[in-house]
Structure formats: C-alpha cells, structure tokens
C-alpha cells in the first residue's frame, strides 16, 4: 500500500498550523502536513529541530500551544487523549523496558494497559513480527541493545496501531542491529502499517520512507525524496576525463542542452535541461575534441545533499 492509495481515504494524520512553545523557546512552529494511511512518513531534522516534541504532541503526551491536528481519525484535544493513545503507538528513542521483568512480562503489562482481549494472541503476533518468540522468557536486562529495541517495537505493535510513531528507532545501534530494525520497518510497511519515522539518518529515510518532511523548527520541505532533489538541485551531468580539456568552453558551449558548467577535482559538472538529450550530444562533442572519457553520467544528489542544503540555508539565514 502506498501514500497514493492512502490519499483516497481519510489521512492517518492531519496537522494544521501546529506550534509548540516552551515559555519563550519555540520547539516547532506553524507545522502543516498530512500522512496517508499505509504511508511511511519520514520526519527529518537536526538535533533540537522539534521532531520528538512533534511526536509527543501528536501522541498527546504534551499539549500544543496552537494549531490543530487529527490523529488516527480523532481530533487532538486533552479530552481525546486516551482515545488517541489507544489507536496509536509510540516507540521512544530509548526502549524504556522494565529490565527486571522478562520480555513476556513487559508485554503482558502493556497488553493490560491497552485492555486487549486475546492477550496471548496479541503477544505472540507481536513477538513473531520482530522474530523474538524464542526470547520471550528472557529478562530484558539480559538482552543486547538491538534486542531491547526489538522488544520495544513488539510492545509498540501490541495494539495493532493505526499509526506507529518511531522516534529515532536506530539511534545508538550498531550496523547489524540497525539493519535488523530497517528490515522490521520494511516488513511493517509491506503489511500496510502507517509509520511516522523521525530520524536524522538520511540513508534510513531515503531507503524506508515514501515521503519525507524536513523540520528545522518550521517545516522546510515535504515530498518524495526524488521530488525534493528536483526542487533543490538543477539536473546535471558529471563528466570524468583522463586529462582536462584545453578549451572546455568551446566544447561544452557547442552543446545546446548544456546551460552551464564548472570544473571539479574529478572532472566537470554540467547543468543541463534534459540529461537524456544532453548525454549523447555531449559524448559526441567530447569525442570530437579528442578527449578520453572515463565516465559520463547524470549527477545523483542524495537526500543528504538536500538536507545539508536546507540546514546550511538556515544556518546562513540565522547568521545574517
């Protein structure tokens, strides 16, 4: 299921002009977005950008200063707190497990808090989803950090949440544990679970999310990772040659699709209107100029480039 499918139904989360201030400190301001049913929505931003505060606000742990939101179909208000919390799950950055209790005992406690009927069935399904059924009777204090994170994820799945908020789920994990958590999130995505993922790991967002929003107190950008790249960066080609051109302007200027160029340590980067048209024309021009071509390909901007571009803009704006 994708965001597009979800858009046909009522969104899982609707946020309109939401703000949260702590006295004079602004946690986040005038944030507006929607998350579709079944969508994996990435919420990116540097430390202190307001990501966790946004999750806590949508999870009714803290009250917004202004604005409105609807979470899992329920309007955000103090009165609706228990109703919203029964429909969602939040996995905080720290697993927050009772370390003297076993995995099973931890989950039994939370099954009671959600007033689940078939406690054993819910627990078995949740443990099965995170591949921890065999460790059910282990004390949580004896588990590795990665396994604890998986228990926390099982706990978050207990009530079959309409929206699952994952706050930095791979923070502090080693690469193997991180990969396991990524695989779990991917499997949840395949099952159609709506996931709201806060992270500052950009490769994680790029790999797992249908859409991402970049928050730096205010919402800076929102869209699919490829859309964001196109919004922020002109399309370009990277050219690597065995030796620099004697007269690059003469070569590149002769190709109509090339709008500009700059020399880089490894060759040249050319701004182009359409890479598909420009590439063959440029190849012909370089061959005509007797250049030895090592590679000629469209530039790939990562989500990290997008993120850094925006964050740097904010830093520059603040310094002005």
């Amino acid at each position, binding site marked *: 299921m994708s965001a597009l499918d979800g858009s046909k139904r009522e969104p899982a989360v609707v946020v309109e002009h939401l703000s949260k201030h702590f006295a004079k400190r602004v946690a986040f301001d005038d944030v507006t977005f929607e998350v579709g049913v079944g969508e994996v929505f990435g919420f990116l931003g540097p430390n202190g950008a307001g990501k966790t505060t946004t999750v806590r606000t949508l999870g009714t742990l803290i009250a917004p*200063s202004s604005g409105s939101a609807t979470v899992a179909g329920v309007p955000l208000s103090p009165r609706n707190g228990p109703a919203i919390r029964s429909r969602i799950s939040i996995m905080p950055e*720290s697993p*927050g*497990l*009772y370390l003297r*209790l076993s995995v099973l005992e931890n989950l039994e406690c939370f*099954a009671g808090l959600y007033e689940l009927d078939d406690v054993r069935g819910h627990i078995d399904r949740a443990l099965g989803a995170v591949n921890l059924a065999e460790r059910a009777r282990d004390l949580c204090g004896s588990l590795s950090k990665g396994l604890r994170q998986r228990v926390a994820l099982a706990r978050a799945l207990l009530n079959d949440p309409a929206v699952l908020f994952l706050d930095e789920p791979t923070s502090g994990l080693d690469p193997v544990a991180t990969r396991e958590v990524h695989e779990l999130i991917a499997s949840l995505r395949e099952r159609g679970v709506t996931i709201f993922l806060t992270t500052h790991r950009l490769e994680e967002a790029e790999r797992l999310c249908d859409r991402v929003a970049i928050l730096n107190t205010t919402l800076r950008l929102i869209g699919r990772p490829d859309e964001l790249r196109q919004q922020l960066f002109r399309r370009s080609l990277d050219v690597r040659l065995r030796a620099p051109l004697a007269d690059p302007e003469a070569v590149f200027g002769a190709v109509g699709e090339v709008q500009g160029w700059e020399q880089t340590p490894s060759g040249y980067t050319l701004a182009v209107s359409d890479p598909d048209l420009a590439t063959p024309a440029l190849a012909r021009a370089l061959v005509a100029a007797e250049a030895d071509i090592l590679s000629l390909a469209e530039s790939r901007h990562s989500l990290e480039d997008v993120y850094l571009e925006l964050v740097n803009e904010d830093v520059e704006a603040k310094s002005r």
Partner: protein
Amino acid sequence: MSFSWTRVGAILHKELRDYRRNRFVIATMAATPALFIALPTIQLIAANATGKAVTLRVGLSLLYMLVVPVIMPSVISAYSVVGERDQGTLEPVLSTPIRREELLIAKALAAFVPTLVVAYAVFGIFLAIAALFAHPAIVSAIYAGTHVLVQLLFTPLLAGWAVWIGIAVSTRSTDVRAAQQLSVLGSAPPLAILVLMSLNVITVSTALAIALAAALLAFDLLAWRVVAAMFDRERLVTGSRG
C-alpha cells in the same frame, strides 16, 4: 473512556513482579520490619516492671510497630514516579491510554498492599513473641484497653498517608534519593502526634483517637485527587511546562 481497573491491575501486577526482583525494595521490606520488631521485642522480654512503667513501655513498644507502615511505603512510593522517569519507562507507559488517576491508584496500591501485609505480619509476630516470652503483666497490658484496636486501625491509615505523601513528592521530584528523603520527612507528622500520645504529652482519649483516625481517613480518601492534580504529564515527559 472511563476509569479502568484492568489498567490499574496491569500496573499493580507489574509493580509487584518488579518488587520481587528489586534488591532495594526487598531490603526495605526486610530491614525496616526487622529493625522495628527487634527493639520493642527485646525491651518487652527484658522488662519485668509493673504499674505505670508497664503501660509506658507497652505504649512505646507498640509505637515502634506503627513506624513500619510509615517508613516502608514512604520509601517505596517516593520511587514510584521519579524512579520510572529515571529509568526511561515512564514515557512508554504514559503513551498508552492509561489515565493519571489509574496510574496513581495503581502505584498507591502497589505500595499500600505489601505494607499492610508486612506491618500486620510484624505485629502478629510481636504478639506471638510477647505471649511466649514476656512477663504476664506486660502481656496483659498489651491486650488491655484499645492497644490492639489502635494498631489495627492506624496501620492502614498511616500507610495511606505515607503512600500519598510519597507519590506526591515523587511526581514533583527529579532525583530519587531526594524524593525518598522528602517523603520520609513528609510522612512524619501523624507519627509525631502518636509519639506525643504514647509519651502522655497529649492525653489519650477515645475522642482524640477517633478524630485523628477520621482526619487520616479523610486525607487518604481525598489525597489522590490532589496528587492527580499535581501529576503533570507534560512536565514529567519534557521536564518543563508548556
């Protein structure tokens, strides 16, 4: 969504499971009664006094028994909220549908029930040892008047006071040790009145005992509403108010 005893039960069950494996709680539950049963028992067994001295000695010995339902729950309940916050387990619990009143009742019961069991057990042991080894005049003095009734009545009332003071302190503290110290301090006033009564500084009368019991009962029944009002979910999660 209305008040749910299922959610209260979930927290209560979890707390009791946790206590069994928590060395600090086990030590508190074992050391406090051991201390406060040893001293009065030795006093009574060693004594062969008669007259007014017996009454005073019995009064003091029984007073020791009432320290148990004050000290034990105040230490345990002071840990209840700030301890969870310290361990990072409070936010996941608060992220569930649980209401603050449900959480507080569960935490209160988790401190109150074991206290009651231990305090009554300690009193029972004390009575048994006295019956077996103490001077007959002292045994008679223990059962004379309203001593036993006062013990049975004031044990839960004092425990209730100590539990709510402890939880109130715990909801507002940021440090477990400071919470426990403040909690023990806050639990002392009713005990001080009992000390004065035992030392005959305040003349004991049925009316006074009933008044004190009624005041404690009223406090125990109303305190949870006051403590619930002090329980600020946002401050507990973020450390600051919106």
